[in-house]
């Protein structure tokens, strides 16, 4: 059953800017989240370097048995990671368009927000929860975690 579990936003130098769970998940220590975000960032660079074909981008999708991790790296260097159930339809498109739009509208256009600062925006939280909550409910999965 498709579901969206969580969203992480990683800044230009690998620091974790935002992390949000949409469904009840086993808890991850905050320090571990910071380490995971910076390892992901570093590994994307190594994957591009190791690529057997020239001009590779960073990692776009990691598939495992129990989850899929979609990663969208913007032109400005911010990375969005979305953890979903395997074979969730349209997850990449969603990340690339709607979530990025929300980020641009509520975070970047906030005059008090600076680049690579931790994201603290009620409007962004609210709209993101509404969007992902609606998608999860459409698939009949759990309630949105507050």
């Amino acid at each position, binding site marked *: 059953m498709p579901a969206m579990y969580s969203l992480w936003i990683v800044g230009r130098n690998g620091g974790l800017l935002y992390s949000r769970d949409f469904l009840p998940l*086993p808890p991850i220590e905050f320090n571990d989240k910071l380490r995971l975000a910076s*390892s992901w960032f570093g590994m994307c660079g190594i994957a591009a*370097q*190791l*690529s057997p074909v020239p001009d590779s981008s960073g990692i776009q999708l990691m*598939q495992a048995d129990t989850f899929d991790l979609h990663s969208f790296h913007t032109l400005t260097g911010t990375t969005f990671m979305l953890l979903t159930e395997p074979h969730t339809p349209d997850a990449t498109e969603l990340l690339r368009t709607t979530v990025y739009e929300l980020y641009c509208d509520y975070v970047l256009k906030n005059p008090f927000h600076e680049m690579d600062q931790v994201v603290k925006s009620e409007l962004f939280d609210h709209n993101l929860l509404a969007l992902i909550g609606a998608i999860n409910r459409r698939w009949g999965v759990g309630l949105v975690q507050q």
Partner: protein
Amino acid sequence: MGCMTFYIFNRKGRCQYYHEWQRLKPIKQGAGSQDEDFKLMFGLCWSMRALATAVDPKNPSKQQMGAPMRIGDGCSFNSIKTSNFKLHYLESPSGLKFVLTTDPTVGSMVEQLQYIYASLFVELVAKNPLYTPGDAFL
């Protein structure tokens, strides 16, 4: 397009086997030398596996990220896709790692990798009386 490169690593990180069909970006531009390439590839797979175990949403009892994992424990990932290539990964219960890079349009290669392990590696290499486990071959 099809397959590009294939590696087998043992659990200590040594590359046991390497084959390349086509490698459009020479190793000099990427890692620098064949040894560096092996080390980076092993490191990538190791870190990705640690990340997959830490992020796994279905495992209720997780250890902290830095704690040493037993071989075969925890969630392993199947594949990593970038814009130009896809890396398929299989880890055997004994810690042997099979890594195959292909072009990004290929689907799941889990069965093929399991075939390579079960019917080719185990039958032909592991059961060979002259083979010492942990040695590089070919």
